[in-house]
């Protein structure tokens, strides 16, 4: 009779042990899942970042192209203006020199506006 009882208890104990194992496995799964969350998140983040980086690269290479073209456009414009200025100058130079000389010899001696004639 005692032998039977201890055998029964034994079986129950073993069942408990198995049960505990099952639960333990589930717990281990949970721990692993948390780690996985971290590593998978990191992977996704890295992908996202790489994507953003390539986007940015295309964006900035487009931009630098436009800077080049605008620079040469501005340079061309400047050259045109410079040529204009020079031709305008050579056209009008002599007239202005004449004007300067005329004014240099233009003398109009006048009395000072506050001058009061001496009382004779």
């Amino acid at each position, binding site marked *: 009779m005692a032998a039977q009882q201890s055998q029964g208890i034994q079986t*129950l104990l073993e069942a408990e042990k198995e049960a505990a194992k099952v639960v333990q496995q589930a717990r281990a799964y949970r721990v692993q899942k948390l780690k996985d969350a971290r590593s998978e*998140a990191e992977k996704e983040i890295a992908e996202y970042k790489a994507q*953003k980086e390539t986007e940015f690269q295309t964006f900035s290479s487009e931009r630098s192209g436009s800077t080049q073209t605008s620079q040469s456009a501005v340079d061309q414009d400047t050259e045109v203006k410079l040529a204009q200025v020079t031709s305008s100058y050579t056209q009008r130079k002599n007239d202005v020199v004449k004007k300067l000389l005329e004014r240099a010899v233009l003398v109009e001696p006048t009395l000072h506006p506050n001058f009061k004639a001496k009382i004779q």
Partner: protein
Amino acid sequence: MARPMNDDEVANEMNKMVTFIKQEALEKAREIRVKADEEFAIEKAKLVKQETSAIDAQYDKKRKQAEVALKIAQSTQTNKSRLKLLQAREGHLQDLFGAARTELVKLPQDKERYAELLEGLVLQGLLTLMEPRATVLSREADLQLVQSAATRAAEKYASLTGHAAPEISVEATLDKDSAGGVKLVGAANRITIDNSLDERMRLLEDRMLPEIRTDLFGANENRRFNN
């Protein structure tokens, strides 16, 4: 009163208990797993969201910096261009003044007009000094011309002002390289009037700049107020 169980019934009960234990364990394990999956999803989403918005902010900032840099570059280009233009104009201006100065030296060659000019210059100086005594400085080469011009100027001064004609002494101390004209000194060497052609030209160069600009290069289109 229940009778004691027989072997079969014991075995049955045992099985029931074992199964029950197993069931409980499986359910508990399942709960744990389900919860783990949920937490996994939440945690992962949270991490991803956190980092991706940080990355977005980073790249936004980079973009803005790039735009600012672009604007700066454009502004620098425009500025350089304007400076180039201004330098060119300044160069032309200097060329102009050089040409004017070269011509200036030739003025004294027309003797008649030069004599008239000298008289005017001396008179202008006398009217500014308003002194009974004055010294006129001239170039060595102009000494005689200036002496006669000074006499005429003194008379005109007298008729204009009603004062007596001032005493004028002429000294040939003006610089040899000067283009011509006269300087007047009065009030015991305390007042000097520079009416030399060089000085007059210099003054003109400065004061006529707006007019010269318009004459040479046209009016300024960007100017808003012209009074």
